[in-house]
């Protein structure tokens, strides 16, 4: 039984949307069920590697209903299968459960999503900014953040040699 069939039978009561494009098998899951589904895929369907966590801001996307899509690419190192799990979260407080307890690779990947999109992950052990400085206030990969910046650099306090 493929992982998708297993998902269909196990979570038959939920709204899962299955699709395929080229060789990507994709499932869109409701955010409330995300952790349960990912835990099922890891523990019972041998998807033992989390290759990628990323987010997309659908603010300017034609026909999109939700603001953020968060994407998990799972890999089974035994069968070589891949499964792309996607879920949607919305403003004002985008929040998802952290999957750090399932895969440790989620640690920095979720931190980057938080840093770039401002999506918080509850249960993450150390959710700090990772690529931008701690005092940075914006989320640069959001679509309402302009390409050329808002002048954060000019607002940084300048330390003189005497003060440092």
């Amino acid at each position: 039984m493929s992982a998708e069939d297993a998902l269909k039978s196990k979570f038959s009561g939920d709204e899962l949307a299955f699709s395929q494009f080229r060789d990507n098998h994709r499932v869109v899951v409701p955010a409330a069920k995300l952790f349960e589904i990912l835990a099922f895929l890891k523990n019972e369907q041998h998807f033992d590697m989390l290759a990628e966590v990323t987010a997309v801001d659908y603010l300017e996307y034609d026909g999109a209903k939700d603001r953020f899509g968060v994407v998990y690419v799972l890999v089974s190192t035994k069968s070589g299968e891949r499964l792309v799990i996607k879920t949607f979260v919305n403003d004002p407080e985008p929040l998802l459960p952290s999957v750090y307890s399932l895969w440790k690779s989620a640690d920095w990947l979720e931190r980057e999503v938080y840093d770039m999109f401002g999506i918080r992950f509850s249960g993450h052990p150390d959710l700090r900014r990772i690529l931008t400085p701690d005092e940075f206030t914006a989320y640069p990969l959001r679509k309402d953040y302009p390409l050329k910046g808002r002048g954060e650099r000019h607002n940084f306090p300048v330390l003189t040699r005497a003060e440092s």
Partner: protein
Amino acid sequence: MPFEVSDLAELDAPDKEYLWTLNFGPQHPATHTTLRLILTLDGETVVNAVPHIGYLHSGFEKLGEHLDFNQYVTIVDRMNYISPLHNEISWHHAVEKLLGIELTPRCKYLRTILAELMRIQDHLLNTGTCALDLGGFTAFLYFFQQRELIYDIVETASGQRFHTSYTRVGGVAFDVNNAWVDKVRSFVKGFAAVHAEVHRLLTRNRIFIERVKGIGYLSAEDCINMGVTGPLARASGVLRDLRKDEPYLAYPDLDFKVVAAKDGDCYARYLVRMQEMVESIKIIEQCIENIPEGPVNVDAGSKAVIPAKPSVYRSIEGLIQHFEVMMPNRGFASPKEEIYAATESPNGELGYYIVSDGTPRAYRARTRPPSYIHFAVFPQIIKNHQLSDVVAVLGSLNIIAAELDR
């Protein structure tokens, strides 16, 4: 374990006042680029390491949303600048998968040769500098001389030694000629001798072995759980290589082995990389003698492809298509879809997640950089090692900061 806040509180306790804090980097010769580590030391033993990254963050992914599929290639080859052409091949692999373009056989072989040359180039630098950091200067020089030859080969093909921007949607910028084939042949012929010489210099060198053997151990389970791929995972016994598992380009036609080791330490990684170079040479040998004839770019009937120069200058159809592809306000239609596509880069799984909104520009161009995933492992494997091992482990992880921070 990756860094946890509770760890730090424990280390701050009054009875732990004898611990030292050492700032390693961002400017340090052994970090090669700008990495920063905060090490907590008990004498010379590292009890905790906290990486601070982002010094080279330059918003590549944001730029990817504003450049079209051909233009962004100039940015991706600045990510892992040790093997720039491989990033381009990976990026266009993802784009072509999105657009549904099947490459010509000649282009597949050509890209395979270039990808393997890049793998050799990356492993040459990595094993060379790993030895250099540990005090073995000679191997580094021998290997860098081979890298020069690869630069020459790449320059002959693309006109650029380093940031080549050579691939295009559906092909490459220029076809190669016989002079290029001869250069690759002579490189392949001369490489084995240098490789054997470095083997003699390092592999059974007692000083080198004592610095790397048993250092930086990573188990197979941890590799899988922490998303580690590429030579690092294979050195721990994870038999996973996208060239075999999800074949792309010309790899299904070729005969090569997946190199793996069991030990999972720095020495195993060194051995895996050394042997992978031999396998790459085997692949290049097979490809270079069997490059198919024919066009290198896919047929210009596909709207996304830049037409050949003669047809631009001599036919109105070619000129129109060139105009359509090149002008920023024109462009072609791409499927309104999302795709994740990955290739086996020298460093591990290099993936791109592209969201397209129907324009020739990505709506979101996410890179899954192997260095980023691998550096997250560092705090765990350095624990309870000596300070001098930090350099050995960093060298064996092959962290490229430009790819790490993007």
